[in-house]
């Protein structure tokens, strides 16, 4: 069953913050985040492997709440280059074989000058 992302779309001005949520009805062992720019391949952002883990990458960070079966991606002081569609992915069948990712439907982020 695929994870559910919210919101579906976000429009921001440069410098504003955004949060993208990813939740699942099944237990999550890890959450992967990817960004896809229009017409390009998805690009890896980060993996969260443990409940409660938080990671950061530049001004993009994420948290993982295993109990709530959800992860959130935080984009701080957004830049034009942050525009794209963000996908969370969870491995089907538990912690093994993380290459078989089930992706959420995506959140389209548009950053305007």
């Amino acid at each position, binding site marked *: 069953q695929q994870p559910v992302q919210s919101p579906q779309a976000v429009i921001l001005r440069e410098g504003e913050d955004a949060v993208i949520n990813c939740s699942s009805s099944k237990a999550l062992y890890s959450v992967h985040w990817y960004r896809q720019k229009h017409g390009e391949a*998805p690009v890896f952002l980060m*993996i969260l492997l443990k409940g409660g883990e938080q990671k950061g990458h530049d001004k993009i960070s994420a948290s993982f709440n295993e109990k709530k079966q959800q992860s959130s991606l935080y984009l701080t002081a957004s830049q034009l280059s942050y525009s794209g569609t963000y996908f969370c992915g969870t491995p089907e069948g538990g912690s093994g074989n993380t*290459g078989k*990712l089930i992706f959420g*439907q995506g959140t389209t982020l548009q950053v305007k000058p």
Partner: protein
Amino acid sequence: EPEVTQTPSHQVTQMGQEVILRCVPISNHLYFYWYRQILGQKVEFLVSFYNNEISEKSEIFDDQFSVERPDGSNFTLKIRSTKLEDSAMYFCASSGSEKLFFGSGTQLSVL
């Protein structure tokens, strides 16, 4: 940074024809995947390949599809007797651990 390369970038075919999509994964990776993305939709897993055999496949990956690693560097996806609904962007990916590296995709259009 090493990258996954896919050819062709675009493929147009007639319904019922066979197509072969090609991928060169990152050289020291051991796990290979095909995903596809129908326009405007999410990325969907098709198949994973490890140690020269399929390790997992989705419901989409039926007898119409097959994968091969013919020469130790290329990784191919064959679609026999293409249907209109096979039109999509097909991404190859490889990994050495958890992180997936995607190729730039082959846009398949079935007419």
